[in-house]
């Protein structure tokens, strides 16, 4: 980020930018991806696939709006099903973007400068995907605005004591602030694109978006202040969002949900899955667009380390859940523990333990952290594992609660799967377009990493 110009590009480690770059080469390399690189057949082919997946989402939602939520596998006792599983999963993925852009900015981690832009884009798209699920799950999504407090003829107001209302505020604030943060970060780069665009139309579009940015020292000064304050605001915000999501569970009395460990455990899991998604996207993107100079092995290795650390926190969370199941002496809690290991969903639980706890431990070995193939595979496994975690939390707890007579099983229908796969398509469609129409790496923040950007005030002029 812009304010940390005093931190030297570190010492003996791999530098955050490969040597030999100047302000011009950085600008050229990143903006040319948008401005002059021809559209490849591979891009078109991939786009057709992800766009068809997105259309599958449209069909699934269209049919849902006609028929209602009965087309899904949800029923009593499992009323939440895939909708909430996917909602929590997507929101969690978004968290890594804000962590990279805001928290690492406050911690002055300069390596974040090359991955924050597309990680923030990832946040926006993931939160957009997440938002679909609670809306679709409402049954009458066209009445979704009832969630907001507004004067109406029914004289009705939301119940502010409900975690579901907190969720509305947390998620919509999160989306708005992420969008603002992302756009503010884009303004100087949009000006660079404006000044480099050949075609008048393209120039005009980027010019409109850049809003007349001219790089004045006064502007930069206010800009940096605003950016730093936004980072400072986004940091507690991102921690609060998954905390509030976890309250949706923790405030309920269902065994396995009603625990105080949920907020930190959810936040750690969110960052865990988010970094996995960052790696899953960054590894192919840097190879396809030749960005190894900017997204170096050091970036990937750092992301792998964050993943390992948050994965251990998640493992601690599982351990603590199991411990409390036994130590509380509560028969329902201890039954939940037994049910996870031996009940009808035991295979999912075993897969969860393997994906989230055991397999990622190979990241302790440098060999796996510096191999892009392995890293991609492990990240993918973590994404699967974190999805299973939400599945276990939602489904297993609801399927067998206090009364044996109210037990039930959950079987997702093809519409559940189509909606889930469809949001992946929507996410990837947005990503596909993003890498071609906006600079996917922050150009001006990379410039500040070059030694030439460092200024020493000369004694004779300083007085």
């Amino acid at each position, binding site marked *: 980020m812009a304010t940390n110009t005093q931190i030297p590009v570190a010492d003996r480690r791999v530098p955050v930018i490969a040597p030999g770059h100047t302000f011009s080469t950085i600008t050229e390399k990143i903006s040319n991806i948008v401005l002059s690189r021809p559209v490849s057949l591979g891009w078109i082919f991939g786009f057709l696939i992800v766009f068809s997946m997105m259309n599958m989402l449209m069909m699934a939602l269209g049919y849902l709006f006609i028929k209602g939520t009965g087309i899904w596998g949800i029923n009593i006792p499992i009323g939440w099903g895939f909708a909430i599983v996917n909602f929590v999963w997507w929101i969690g993925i978004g968290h890594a973007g804000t962590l990279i852009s805001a928290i690492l900015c406050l911690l002055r981690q300069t390596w974040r400068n090359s991955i924050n832009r597309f990680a923030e884009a990832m946040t926006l798209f993931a939160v957009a995907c997440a938002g679909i699920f609670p809306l679709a799950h409402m049954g009458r999504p066209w009445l979704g605005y009832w969630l907001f407090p507004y004067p109406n003829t029914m004289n009705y107001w939301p119940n*502010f004591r409900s975690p579901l209302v907190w969720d509305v505020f947390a998620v919509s604030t999160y989306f708005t602030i992420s969008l603002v*943060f992302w756009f503010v970060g884009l303004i100087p780069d949009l000006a660079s694109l404006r000044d480099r665009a050949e075609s008048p139309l393209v120039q005009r579009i980027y010019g409109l978006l850049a809003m*007349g940015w001219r790089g004045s020292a*006064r502007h930069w000064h206010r800009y940096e202040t605003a950016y730093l304050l936004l980072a400072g605001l986004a940091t507690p915000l991102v921690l609060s969002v998954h905390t*509030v999501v976890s*309250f949706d569970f923790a405030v309920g009395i269902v065994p396995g949900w009603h625990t105080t460990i949920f907020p930190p455990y959810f936040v750690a899991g969110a960052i865990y899955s988010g970094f996995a998604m960052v790696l899953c996207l960054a590894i192919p993107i840097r190879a396809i667009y030749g960005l190894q100079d900017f997204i170096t092995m050091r970036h990937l290795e750092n992301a792998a380390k964050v993943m390992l650390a948050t994965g251990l926190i998640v493992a601690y969370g599982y351990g603590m859940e199991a411990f409390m199941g036994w130590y509380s002496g509560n028969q329902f809690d201890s039954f939940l523990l037994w049910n996870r290991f031996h009940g009808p969903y035991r295979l999912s639980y075993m897969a969860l333990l393997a994906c989230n706890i055991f397999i990622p431990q190979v990241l302790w070995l440098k060999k796996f952290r510096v191999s892009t193939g392995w890293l991609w595979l492990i990240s993918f496994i973590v994404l699967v594992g974190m999805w299973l975690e939400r599945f276990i939390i939602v489904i297993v707890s609801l399927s067998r609660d206090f009364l044996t007579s109210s037990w039930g099983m959950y079987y997702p229908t093809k519409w559940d799967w189509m909606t889930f796969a469809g949001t992946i398509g929507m996410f990837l469609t947005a990503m596909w377009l993003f890498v071609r129409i906006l600079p996917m790496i922050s150009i001006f923040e990379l410039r500040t990493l070059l030694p030439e950007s460092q200024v020493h005030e*000369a004694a004779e002029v300083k007085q």
Partner: protein
Amino acid sequence: MTTGDSPIYGLMAEFDSAQELVDAAHKTHEAGYQKIDAYSPFPIEGLAEAIGFHKNRVPLAVLIGGLIGGISAYALQYWVAVITYPVNIGGRPFHSWPSFIIVTFELTILFAGLSAAIGMLALNGLPMPYHPVFNVPEFAKASENKFFLVVFSSDPKYDAAHTRSFLTGLAPRMIAEVPS
């Protein structure tokens, strides 16, 4: 910063490095020029101070925005839960303040964050569809790798010939008149 009768907005000097720009900005400011500005492709530490810019009101905007957001969120919840739509939820008091903290917090962040972005843009006078500095063709490099210093013709000390010779003394790459 309008130029009045003069069709010239100011004199622009181009530099090759951030260091040269900061040094030149210091010297120009110390030579008594008040209405000057510097342009760079990335933020440079100390450059704003070098051109004599100290008043940054973005933090104040954020503080005010945050306070408005927080206070109005809490007031709304109090008014809804206690005055206009009191509902007994599990026997809790109507004014069950711990439940109201989260929405208060979220709206504080929302308003403060929007104030940061909108306040920054408004104080910077953006969006601005037209600005004279873009009339100089070389200025396109200000968003890539070149550094510019402009002395506005509205400066009391501005004098076309004298200012030009002063700027020449700073050894810029080139000097150009900025048509307004």
